């Protein structure tokens, strides 16, 4: 896909995230919007997957560790063809397959269950070990939040992956600098994050998490590293794409109200007023 097509795809995913959250009446806004570009790059350019065969044994695996940003995972899967886009509007409702936090047995394309923070990297490591044991080429990708680096298990996993030189594992950190109680460096400082990973024997890349050329180059670069696991620290803007949500940690854990959603959708549809919307 061209960069332009990817940008448009990410915009559609962002619009669906807003609609889903409005419909659900609860859920997280900032994280899913901030990760829409990374997820678009993964599902439409990087991952070797087949939506028609979600259980294909040689598929790449994507493990979402910070399960609360699942609206972006659900929207990406739906747009990629794993299930009907209309089903997105059932998020968090009784009888849905789109639970408040993702469940591997509920929906095709979901590799793991997550929600309680800090568990995903370990699961991804287990999958990477399987590929290594079986001499398979498929890769494992793990998406982590920055806040979940407060969890001890995350560091147990980082230590283990470094020790085992798991080069078939690529981790992306959503470095948006916010968590529920405020800015990460106030709640529990993580810096120097890149140096910490390097000292645990990881290859570290830092990118602008909203620049598709950067994102795709980083994932391709990671494939070429054969001695270590790679972590891509993606600097993202929480709430990206919706002006009044960007960089405001109050939007971490709440959905937009109806008037806010209207405003957000208008902004996304018009690319911040750059084009005139026919819906005006």
């Amino acid at each position, binding site marked *: 896909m061209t960069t332009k097509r990817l940008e448009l795809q990410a915009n559609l995913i962002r619009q669906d995230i807003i609609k889903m959250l409005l419909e659900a009446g609860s859920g997280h806004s900032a994280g899913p919007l901030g990760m829409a570009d990374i997820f678009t790059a993964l599902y439409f350019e990087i991952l070797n997957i087949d939506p028609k065969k979600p259980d294909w044994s040689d598929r790449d695996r994507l493990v979402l560790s910070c399960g609360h940003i699942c609206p972006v995972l659900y929207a990406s899967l739906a747009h990629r063809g794993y299930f009907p886009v209309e089903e997105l509007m059932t998020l968090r409702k009784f009888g849905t397959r789109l639970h408040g936090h993702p469940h591997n047995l509920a929906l095709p394309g979901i590799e*793991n269950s997550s929600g309680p923070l800090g568990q995903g990297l*370990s699961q991804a490591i*287990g*999958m990477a070990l399987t590929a290594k044991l079986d001499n398979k080429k498929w890769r494992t990708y793990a998406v982590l939040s920055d806040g979940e680096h407060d969890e001890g298990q995350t560091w*147990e*996993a980082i230590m283990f992956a470094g020790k085992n030189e798991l080069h078939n594992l690529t981790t992306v950190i959503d470095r948006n600098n916010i968590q529920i109680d405020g800015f990460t460096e106030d709640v529990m400082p993580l810096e120097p994050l890149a140096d910490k990973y390097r000292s645990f024997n990881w290859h570290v890349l830092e990118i602008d998490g909203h620049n598709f050329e950067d994102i795709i180059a980083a994932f391709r670069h990671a494939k070429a590293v054969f001695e270590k696991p790679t972590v891509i620290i993606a600097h993202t803007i929480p709430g990206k794409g919706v002006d009044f949500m960007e960089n405001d940690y109050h939007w971490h854990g709440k959905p937009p109200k109806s008037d806010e959603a209207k405003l957000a959708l208008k902004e996304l549809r018009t690319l911040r007023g750059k084009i005139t919307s026919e819906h005006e």
Partner: protein
Amino acid sequence: MSKFLVPLHHESFEQIAPRDGFGQGLLELGKSNPNVVALCGDLVESIRVQAFAEAYPERYFEMGVAEQNMAGVAAGLALSGKIPFTSSYAVFSPGRNWDQTRVSICYSKANVKIVGAHAGISVGPDGATHQALEDVAITRVLPNMLVVVPTDSVEAKKATIAISKHIGPCYIRFGREKTPVITKEETPFELGKALPIRAGDDVTIIANGQMVYRSMMAAKELEGKVSVGVLNMHTVKPIDAKAIIDVAKETNAIVTAEEHQIIGGLGSAVTEVLADHYPVPIERIGVLDTFGESGKPDELMEHYHLGVSDIVHAVERVVRRKNAS
């Protein structure tokens, strides 16, 4: 001893630690099933994973002292087709990593086999921190989990092989000490199916782990006074409700015996079945809602009311209650 229902050793009981049986079972699985992998949290010799690790080094993962990561890595291995056995002391796994066990393993139905060693008060001198007395309760309560407490080393080996064939999360726990080997190779073993050890007319003791042997001793001591049956309930979940109801109907009095807190373990599971289906007087032997302390295994078993005499008294109490009702 009279009326044995299954082939049992009963002349002289050899003393072997159940973990030796587990280690043999795991080694056999290494040979018979290439998907079996082993993970251990810095206790490879102690939990008898050593032989597997030496025979199949590419399928063995040293996890360090990091039980939370071990549970998660095992989940990932299982979700991609492997059959991982995690091993640590029961206080650490499933003790320390219960949330990972709940979400990464049980909720995901990851085919992980959790091995909790050094369980029970009989771990002895290490003291209360290392005496897992809550592990059956915290695993039994998890949906999708199977919980098995083998009675001796021979049964531990059979259970190890059996859980590898069961698709889904399993927890197997055993103590540190050498305990009497009461079952034989040819003694039947089926997950979820209680093993009748001896028949009795007045009371049935339902026990697991090393308490089965102690229950047999209690039954022997009561011979001529009370006719006591013994049922080996090696699988706590799914519990063999039919076997419990059958013996309750036969003897109308039940005693349970386990090396675990009296809250939440085998005694609770049996009580739940009886309360739901066929209430009869029941007395429970277990640690009485307290932490342990340092001491020799036998001293502790006596002090915390897990001795043969405690079982004998429980049988006498339940008979009195039955006759009074």
